[in-house]
């Protein structure tokens, strides 16, 4: 398995998604429309709380909403069924016969996808946000550099989680229930709906015990400069730990699943 092969896979991930420009545009419009509504809700909530809510002023609240909308596509907080379909149809046998590690190959393709979607699907919500509500972003360079690292890690954590859940298809025939359950918990706990910092105590505790805040809340905190210096490195460290842990769990379950797998035909 060579690095060159993985680089090519990353490139194909980019190419596959960049082929459909109008789909990217349509997605950006959707993310922006929801951003308008979400920013109004967060600003309304901050206003109702008397000007600040868990450290967010009105503009910070709006910025959170816009950044979350910008990161939806790159981090891919929604479900995608690629791997599930391949396991069910038996195409997974093709992946198994390739001379690259399947998990790494899929991860690279997903990183390519994320890299493409970052600008066409992330920039429109942020531009509209800057015009409509204004954005509260730090003036130094460092939060953005560390923020990019954090976004990449968020993509990896999101991929690792989806990979792990998809592998249930080795044992289950109908995956819609598992997928919905995953979407429900991850969407609430990652901070897509409202910032994790607004959660009541018990929900914050539940969220902290899952990898989900590392998918959205963490990169937004780093980019907005809510955490800086050693704290920011700590947040990134937690992301690295989750990424490694969930990827490893995925490898283990993959081994168990392929041992059980029987593909018909030839």
């Amino acid at each position: 398995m060579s690095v060159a092969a993985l680089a090519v896979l990353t490139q194909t991930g980019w190419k596959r998604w960049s082929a459909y420009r109008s789909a990217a545009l349509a997605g950006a419009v959707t993310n922006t429309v929801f951003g308008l509504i979400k920013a109004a809700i967060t600003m309304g909530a901050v206003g109702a709380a008397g000007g600040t809510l868990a450290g967010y002023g009105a503009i910070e609240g709006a910025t959170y909403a816009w950044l979350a909308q910008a990161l939806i596509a790159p981090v891919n907080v929604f479900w995608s069924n690629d791997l599930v379909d391949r396991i069910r149809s038996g195409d997974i046998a093709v992946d198994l016969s390739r001379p690259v590690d399947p998990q790494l190959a899929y991860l690279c393709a997903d990183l390519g996808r994320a890299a493409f979607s970052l600008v066409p699907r992330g920039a429109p919500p942020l531009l509209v946000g800057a015009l409509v509500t204004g954005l509260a972003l730090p003036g130094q360079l460092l939060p953005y550099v560390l923020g990019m690292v954090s976004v990449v890690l968020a993509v990896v954590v999101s991929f690792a989680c989806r990979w792990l859940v998809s592998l249930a298809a080795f044992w289950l025939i109908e995956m819609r229930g598992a997928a919905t359950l995953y979407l429900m918990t991850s969407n609430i706990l990652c901070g897509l709906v409202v910032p994790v910092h607004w959660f009541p105590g018990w929900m914050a505790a539940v969220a902290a015990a899952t990898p989900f805040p590392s998918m959205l809340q963490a990169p937004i905190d780093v980019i907005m400069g809510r955490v800086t210096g050693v704290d920011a490195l700590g947040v990134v460290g937690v992301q690295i730990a989750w990424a490694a842990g969930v990827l490893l769990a995925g490898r283990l379950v993959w081994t168990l699943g392929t041992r059980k797998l029987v593909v018909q035909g030839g």
Partner: protein
Amino acid sequence: MADLSAAGSRRPTAAGGLLGPYRALVSSRLRSQLAYRRSFALDVLGSFGVGLIEFAEVYVIFSSISVLGGLDFAGLALLFGLASLSFSLADLLVGHIDRIPTYLRTGTLDAFLLRPLPVLAQLVTSDIQLRRLGRSALALGVLVVALVVNPIDFTPAVITLLLITPIAGTAIFCGLFVVAAGIQFWLIEGSEMANAFTYGSNYAATFPTSIFSLPMRVLFTFVVPAAFTAYLPTLLILGLPGPAWTPAWWGWLTPLAALAVWGVALLAWRAGLRHYTGAGS
């Protein structure tokens, strides 16, 4: 209507006359969905969960504040219940029409065009998704609790309003789904844009319209009338005064808004269908 009576006179099936074919279509869908009981139960549970996520947002926000846009938690639950009930019923009845981009791309719409029934009526009856009742159940539960918890004076007027609003609200969301489907004839891979329109208006409808900026209030009142599905009737039910730009009695106008949306929806659908040229397959 002309299409419908023409179809009726041909009587494609023996039973039931005018509505016979639709009854056959719907009952075939329902039978197929109920065939795998456990899978269906899980799907209903999933749909319930989607509603739960939506309500979780309201819950989390109200864990740190007490009033949003003039409504307290109980008031917002009433608003949420009304909006979510209407949207989930519309999603159940016509939500599957958002698959139209797939029909257009694969050319399967041609099959619908060949049958002697109006295409829209066929598409609507072709894939009713019973599992979406899960979300309606959550909405209904929230609504009932909200009606008990809020200090509501159940006058005949309020009861009438409570009956009219979900029906007219469902009609509004159904109309919005059809408008979005009509626009799909011009877009390629535009299903996500349609989502912005339908799911976006639902999202906006579950929050008080008063928290939005003026241009957005105008949008959600006069262009995409989400405010009529829940916010304005909620003001009337709770006896609250409306903001300066919309008096609360507008809550009675939900059926009018539904009629307006359906007018636009049918025009958009007709224009779209005429624009369609087929895949030639």
